[in-house]
């Protein structure tokens, strides 16, 4: 092994070490070997936590919110990237507005979502001023609701900016040449989009879509502001257990943290598999 390889692997270890230590601690704590409520080892805690319906309900709810908001954001990003791809003023303005929410923290987006979609939020006030609503109770629940509509819309708005940025870049760097070839071969605009632009965009933004999904599934800030208490989303359930007054329940948080990490790793592995599968068909 060369000196630069050794240095590189040491650097890899350095950057991953804090997380690996954390994961190691979570593994030990989830089997009761260390941490709050440690009971001398064994899989009893892990089995008990994974046997709780509230855990799976929370996980399913988090995955539903992540899938719905990422799908909405991805569909919007693809549509906008296909529509505003030229160098005209209107295209540049559209691209600017699309990516503007990118640096806005999720918590700020969640506060705006609450003020807009809440029972007495701006939307309800506008409906009331149009005579469509008499009191806040008449407003359909869009925040703290079991379907998570308010959270989905807020996260979709936030992730749209990120996915649109990636989609614009894919269209700008890879789309033009291949579309030109398709056109010279006689393809109509609809066929060019269906056979060239769409597959390019979809494959190009897939890594970002997976990253957005993983992020949203584990996001805490917006979920804490807009999600219901039943079912309790996995990140909220993890932190609730970690701060439980009953010390014996605090160890449950480590089993839940491992569950969250497993979901993230599975999503990344699925993406890597899909990418290696599709790379064989790249021109």
């Amino acid at each position, binding site marked *: 092994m060369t000196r*630069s*390889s050794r*240095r*590189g*692997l*040491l*650097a*890899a270890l350095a*950057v*991953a070490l*804090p*997380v690996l*230590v*954390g994961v190691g*601690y*979570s593994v030990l704590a989830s089997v009761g070997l*260390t*941490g709050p409520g440690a009971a001398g080892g064994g899989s009893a805690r892990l089995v008990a936590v994974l046997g709780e319906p509230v855990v799976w309900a929370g996980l399913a709810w988090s995955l539903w919110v992540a899938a719905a908001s990422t799908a909405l954001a991805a569909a919007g990003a693809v549509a906008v990237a*296909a*529509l*505003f791809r030229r160098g005209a003023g*209107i295209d540049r303005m*559209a691209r600017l*507005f*699309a990516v*503007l*929410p*990118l*640096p*806005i*923290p999720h*918590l*700020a987006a969640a*506060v*705006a*979502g609450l*003020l*807009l979609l809440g029972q007495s939020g701006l939307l309800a*006030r506008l409906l*009331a001023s149009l005579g469509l609503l008499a*009191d806040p109770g008449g407003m359909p629940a869009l925040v703290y609701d079991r379907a998570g509509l308010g959270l989905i819309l807020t996260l979709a*708005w936030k992730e749209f900016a990120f996915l649109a940025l990636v989609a614009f870049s894919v269209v700008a760097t890879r789309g033009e040449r291949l579309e030109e070839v398709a056109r010279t071969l006689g393809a109509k*605009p609809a066929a060019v989009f269906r056979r060239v632009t769409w597959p390019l965009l979809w494959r190009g933004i897939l890594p970002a879509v997976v990253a957005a999904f*993983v992020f949203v*599934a*584990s996001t*805490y*800030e917006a979920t*804490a*502001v807009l999600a219901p208490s039943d079912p309790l989303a996995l*990140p909220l359930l*993890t*932190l609730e257990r*970690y701060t439980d007054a009953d010390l014996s329940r605090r160890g449950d948080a480590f089993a839940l*943290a*491992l569950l*969250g*990490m497993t979901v993230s*790793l599975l999503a*990344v592995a699925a993406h890597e598999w899909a990418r290696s599968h599709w790379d064989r068909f790249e021109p």
Partner: protein
Amino acid sequence: MTEGSRSRPAVLAALALSALAPLALLLLASVGRDWFFPAPWPPAMTLESWGDAFRGGGRMAAALGTSLVLAVGTGLAGAAVGWPIGRALADLSGWARHLGASAAFLPVAAPPVALATGLHLSALTAGVAGTTGGVFLSHLVPATGYAALYFLGVFTLFDRRVEDEARTLGAGPRTVLWRVTMPMMRRQLGEAFLLGFLVSWAQVATTLVIGGGRVRTLPLEVFAYLQAGQDRYAATGALLLVIPALLMLGAVRFAVARAEATPL
């Protein structure tokens, strides 16, 4: 005129509304007084919450200061630590490179709550739990991951012959770093600083767990105001979270535009 081009102005208007309306709503909520349902517009305005945000000794002003110190420190340290790690990772090839990139990806992909609970023992052992230093270190973990990944990409494309030439002219390693590499990397260092700044600026879970409620940053104050039903203060805090992030992005875009002619 195709259907797509006919719909473009309408979609542009929708994009503009979608980007600006939430910010306008936050601004309105931050200055609106006695704004009760069903009034669509605040009946009176006040700058009380904004005054509190900048008045010394106030809760929000203190939290804003802590957040700024943490974010600037994390941005600087993240760039300084991520640089050598990213450069060393860029030297790898084959399986070792995949392994190195995956290692740098770990702190980025780890769920924040899982990362925070996992790091808590280390913070307790090191005696930094519940301190600003401990929170800074916990912010540095994901920030270093982002910066390392960023510099991995940068140094993969970096033409090292420039450094070789300087060395053949007699420059030592330190001179090459300060007189050749660093001046060429000003833009990249600025962007890495921005990444670290934004990562720290928006952190909640690690601050909550590692800080144990004793380190009060702006996001934690926004949560507290929301829970207390003080929407005006929550909206002010939310806007204070937005403004530096937008300013930073604008500054970096400006710097990028200026440095665009400089080849890597």
